[in-house]
């Protein structure tokens, strides 16, 4: 009988034990992949959301900073207003390179005049904007015209329609932005002229008119030199007491903290399960080595090489680990891929799935780590059955 056939027969003969090891490894490898996907995906999502906003400092009315950040991240609409003159004051603060105003609006909820329900509408000024405008110039070859909008990756024109109707106003979706994994994916971006035209039309065509208070803005996005960001933020705060200033690293801090709590929890569970699984597998193979003392003794007495038994034990462990880890990794990846949105809402965090190449690297790392862990846990029983002393004891018992 060949060495491979011997190992395979051993695995099949101890079906329950092999299945226990297989499931144990599959569960731990799956949990490791899930933790890695959630941790890395949520960090990537957060960084893309910050990149999409593209500002070094966000200035909003005092008291609304948390609400605005939640709206930007979750896509749940909010409205907040401050005087438009704040934009001019901020633009004059020393160290401010560029400043642009934004208006935050919401579509109506379940209204027949609207194709979409409760969508966050982000209105920008194309003259001063430095976040979307460069992308629009590059992708569309020019600015948005009246009645044209761009949307996050989940914004779509309803089936059978050519336009998106909001407040009785027909909007043309020109393009979709790259996914961020956050609520920005279901946010619609339009120019201030389109928003004002929509407000005008809504007076006669919508169930409820769109109200944009005159001479009001919702937020100001500020661009500064990196070294000056903190000083500029402090100056804005001193000059305009009615506003709250959020610096880029502090953006979505609440979400960042939530990611930390969730990932710490996952890593703790993963650490405990990994250690427990390694110990259990070591224990199972120790029992296996102990049970097979007589068999090993017979093989040695018949002249089998000294390293045959430990080699078979290690190969058995490697095969079961490889199969179990592969099974766990494939099932976990497929589940995360299919139930991504459900998981994100259940965990209350946003995460993007990494690229295929990145996932491939992750799978390789986890598989390698599983193999090393099981090699360590089975090395003790393997060493024991290869030691001359134990073999002597076996021979003596035959």
């Amino acid at each position, binding site marked *: 009988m060949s060495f491979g056939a011997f190992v395979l027969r051993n695995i099949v003969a101890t079906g329950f034990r092999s299945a226990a090891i297989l499931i144990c490894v599959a569960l731990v490898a799956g949990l490791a992949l899930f933790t890695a996907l959630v941790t890395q995906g949520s960090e990537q999502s957060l960084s893309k959301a910050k990149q999409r906003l593209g500002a070094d400092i966000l200035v909003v009315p005092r008291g609304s900073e948390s609400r605005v950040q939640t709206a930007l991240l979750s896509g749940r609409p909010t409205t907040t207003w401050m005087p438009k003159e704040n934009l001019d004051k901020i633009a004059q603060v020393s160290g401010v390179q560029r400043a642009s105003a934004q208006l935050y609006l919401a579509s109506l909820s379940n209204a*027949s005049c609207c194709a979409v329900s409760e969508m966050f509408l982000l209105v920008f000024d194309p003259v001063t904007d430095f976040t979307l405008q460069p992308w629009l110039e590059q992708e569309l070859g020019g600015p948005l015209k009246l009645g044209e909008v761009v949307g996050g990756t*989940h914004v779509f024109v309803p089936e059978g329609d050519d336009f998106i109707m909001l407040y009785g106003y027909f909007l043309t979706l020109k393009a979709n932005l790259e996914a961020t994994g956050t609520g920005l994916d279901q946010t619609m971006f339009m120019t201030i002229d389109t928003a004002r035209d929509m407000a005008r039309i809504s007076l006669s065509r919508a169930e409820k008119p769109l109200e944009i208070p005159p001479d009001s803005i919702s937020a100001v996005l500020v661009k500064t030199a990196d070294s000056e960001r903190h000083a500029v933020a402090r100056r804005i705060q001193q000059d305009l007491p009615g506003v709250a200033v959020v610096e880029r690293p502090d953006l979505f801090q609440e979400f960042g903290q939530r990611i930390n709590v969730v990932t710490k929890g996952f890593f703790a569970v993963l650490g405990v399960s990994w250690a427990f699984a390694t110990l259990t597998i070591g224990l199972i193979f120790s029992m296996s080595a102990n049970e097979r003392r007589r068999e090993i003794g017979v093989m040695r007495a018949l002249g089998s090489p000294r390293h045959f038994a430990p080699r078979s034990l290690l190969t058995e462990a490697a095969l079961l680990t490889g199969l179990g880890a592969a099974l766990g990794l494939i099932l976990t990846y*497929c589940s995360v891929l299919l139930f991504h949105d459900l998981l994100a809402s259940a965990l209350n965090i946003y995460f993007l799935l990494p690229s295929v190449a990145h996932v491939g690297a992750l799978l390789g790392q986890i598989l390698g780590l599983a193999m090393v862990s099981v090699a360590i846990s089975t090395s003790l029983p393997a060493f024991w059955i290869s030691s001359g002393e134990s073999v002597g004891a076996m021979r003596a018992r035959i």
Partner: protein
Amino acid sequence: MKFLVFLAAIILTLGLLAAIVPQFTDCASDGKSVVLANGKSIPMKCHWSARAEIAVGVPILGIALGSAFSRRKETVRILSMLGVVLGALVILLPTTLIGVCTTPGMTCNTTMRPAMIAVGSLVIAASLCMLAYNELRGRAEM
């Protein structure tokens, strides 16, 4: 033979899931419906996908029971092939043939569609396993 019964039990469970899960994960189960201009409410697209899954789930149960009690190799072979086809239909109903609602955050999109893709894939995999086992068993008996 025991393995065949084990596979049949898996297919039976999956058939039940295919028929039951969509009934509780479509938008109608969330109380959502399409309101027409005349004020009348009609079910959304995902509701019809959910109904159609019953028509596919029940024959899958039949396949599972048939293959668990059948002794004839030819019968198991045909039932396995039917299992593959019905598994594919479980996937195709909410993805292509009827579809689900277009808004990404709705329950039919986050739960029903991925659940049916998973269940359909597992029905196909289990049916293929059954087919392979049946053929190997046949060869061993010869």
